[in-house]
């Protein structure tokens, strides 16, 4: 099995789906001959041509708006937004159009598409190249939101997302774009949306993370194990649909939950997870559900290490929750 990083896995998934289905097209800024600023679409323009790998003018609202028309007319567009931070000019198309097209037409129409975008900090990118905007979209009914943490999941989830009948936002953890490597099968395989993965079994605390922060959580959980604390780690992979059963199962077992995300805390997805756990596992809980997150500030430049919920901060929370 070949070893790939996350970008290569994304590239491989796109190529696999474009070979399988002539309706799959890629569009966005710099995605054509250049192959994207992170090289995720490298080689696709050569193989599939300028009609299926489209360099657009610089306008995210235009990218998503035209993708709606393409999807309505039977193509399966995979627009790229160069950085998740630049998705906001397309917000109206996403929130009022993409998300509601099926609903507002009573199911006569649908606009399935996969909006790929690198997200997250830790790359010295300041606040316009670091944000994690997943909560905005989870909060918008009609959109699915997927965040892989490793190459194997990235490929399998992207293939499923492209085949999904609903619009999917696919946020790629750019901090580990090259650092996260692993074996990735050749050819097609799907990882169904809505299935979390237990990446470490444990009995004392359930730790919930996704994307780049899964790696921080994983490190914290390992360090905790050395200190005699036995944690279970869940990689959610898909935030909407959410594998609430996996969360419930784990928290009923451990009685404790720590949620990690790098977006700001207030109204971050951790707030929703915390509410769900409280509603479903109230009688199993032995400590307050705890969030380790980015702070309620824009993403900073110099103090980004301080801002990010890195392993030391997670470990500290694990100790506190265990001692409660």
């Amino acid at each position, binding site marked *: 099995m070949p070893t790939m990083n996350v970008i290569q896995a994304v590239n491989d998934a796109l190529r696999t789906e474009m070979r399988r289905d002539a309706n799959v097209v890629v569009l966005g800024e*710099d995605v054509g001959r*250049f192959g994207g600023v992170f090289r995720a679409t490298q080689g696709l323009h050569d193989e599939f041509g300028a009609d299926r790998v489209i360099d657009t003018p610089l306008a995210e609202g235009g990218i998503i708006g035209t993708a709606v028309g393409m999807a309505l007319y039977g193509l399966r567009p995979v627009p790229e937004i160069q950085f998740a931070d*630049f998705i906001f000019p397309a917000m109206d198309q996403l929130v009022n159009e993409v998300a509601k097209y099926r609903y507002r037409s009573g199911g006569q129409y649908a606009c399935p598409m996969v909006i790929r975008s690198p997200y997250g900090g830790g790359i*010295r990118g300041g*606040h316009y190249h670091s944000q994690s905007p997943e909560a905005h979209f989870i909060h918008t009914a009609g959109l699915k939101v997927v965040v892989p943490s490793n190459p194997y999941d990235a490929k399998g989830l992207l293939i499923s997302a492209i085949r999904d009948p609903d619009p999917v936002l696919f946020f790629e953890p750019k901090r580990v774009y090259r650092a996260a490597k692993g074996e990735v099968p050749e050819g097609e395989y799907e990882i169904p949306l809505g299935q979390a993965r237990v990446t470490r079994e444990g009995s004392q605390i359930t730790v919930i993370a996704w994307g780049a922060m899964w790696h921080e959580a994983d490190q914290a959980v390992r360090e905790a194990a050395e200190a005699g604390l036995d944690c279970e780690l869940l990689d959610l992979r898909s935030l909407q649909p959410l594998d609430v059963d996996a969360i419930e199962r784990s928290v009923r077992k451990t009685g404790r939950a720590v949620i990690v995300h790098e977006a700001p805390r207030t109204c971050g997805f951790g707030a929703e997870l915390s509410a769900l756990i409280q509603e479903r596992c109230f009688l199993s809980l032995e400590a307050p559900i705890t969030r380790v997150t980015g702070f309620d500030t*824009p993403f*900073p430049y*110099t103090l980004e290490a*301080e801002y990010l919920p890195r*392993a030391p901060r997670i470990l500290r929370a694990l100790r506190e929750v265990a001692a409660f």
Partner: protein
Amino acid sequence: MRREIHQNLVKRNGHGGQNGHAMPELPPFAQRPAPHRPEKEFPLETVLADDGSADLSRLHLPAERLVSLYRLMVLNRLLDERMIQLQRQGRIGFYIGSIGEEATVLGAAAAMADQDWIFPCYREHGAALLRGLPLQRFLCDLLGNSGDLMLGHQMPCHEAFAAGRFASISSPIATQIPQAVGAGWAARIKGDDMVPLVYFGEGATSANDFHTGLNFAGVRKVPVVFVCRNNGWAISVPRERQTAAVTFAEKALGYGMRGERVDGNDLLAVYEATRLARARAHAGEGPTLIECVTYRMEGHSTSDDPRAYRAPELVEPWRKKDPILRLKAHLAWRGLLSEADDAALREQAQAEILAAMREAEALPPKPPLESLFQGVYAEPLWQQREQLEELRAAVDADPRAARLREEG
């Protein structure tokens, strides 16, 4: 009733009117020529000839000012070159500069009045220096250190300098365009003589905010000067993929404003076009869109390698049109600058950059922890006060919480 009006209009105009406005006599639809020929209607205006000569009657810059602008262009160039080097050495995180575009940046800024606001894109550091941003402060911004005016909040090259009426740089493309229109509008409401200058790349003309900004300004004849730096590229996308229009200047027509197309590597032409645009705006004649035709000589930024999408041959012809060489030839032609003067001025600029860098690097590399929460709101909320305490405790307990990587 409606029908009657329509028929009257048809009679008056010969072929039907547009919303009741009289239209000129035109040949029948099928035989009408293409509406306009942009390369004729928007000729590339140049003042500086190749040999450095110029029609001095078209110059409105005193000799002394011209030499000081030349000095600033050189400083800007040397600064860009040096910072690209420092980025490669890992001493700064990122850099985006204006190599080849100095005449556009500085020519436009120099033509505005002191009280005029500048709404920059992200290559206009020269304009910030012109407005008095100390070099050492700019370098602190690049380092994001304790001397940074932005408190380490912004990426390198995203400076704001209120004392010089230089607005805050944002990465999202084109957002500054309607903002500049708002500022010009506000000045008119308040009765102030203030005309904003707004810069953007040709890629930005595809963005919604470009349309919105120009449309608002056109409708209300807002005093504002739009400077489009057409440097040929938006990262890897060539200008032909941004617009099917022949020029960017002609877009002005659709917004009911005046458009100009100037040689963006000719400081005198950029200056002159901007000066006139400012004068018209001030006189109540509305906004102007100035397309400055120039070229991005380097990669998009230090994160980019243009060899992946741009043949080096494309860049070569532009080396001869280097805006600094062209102004230098002009200064020599007028006897305002000798080779020795030029060498001395370069040496001085290098020394200034080195000294400023030394000073900037001597400052503590990180602003204090509380700066993370400063300026989110005018006063921090309870969440932020709590979170600052949480952060302090975490960093005190384990200093790794303040490092990006374990080894770092």
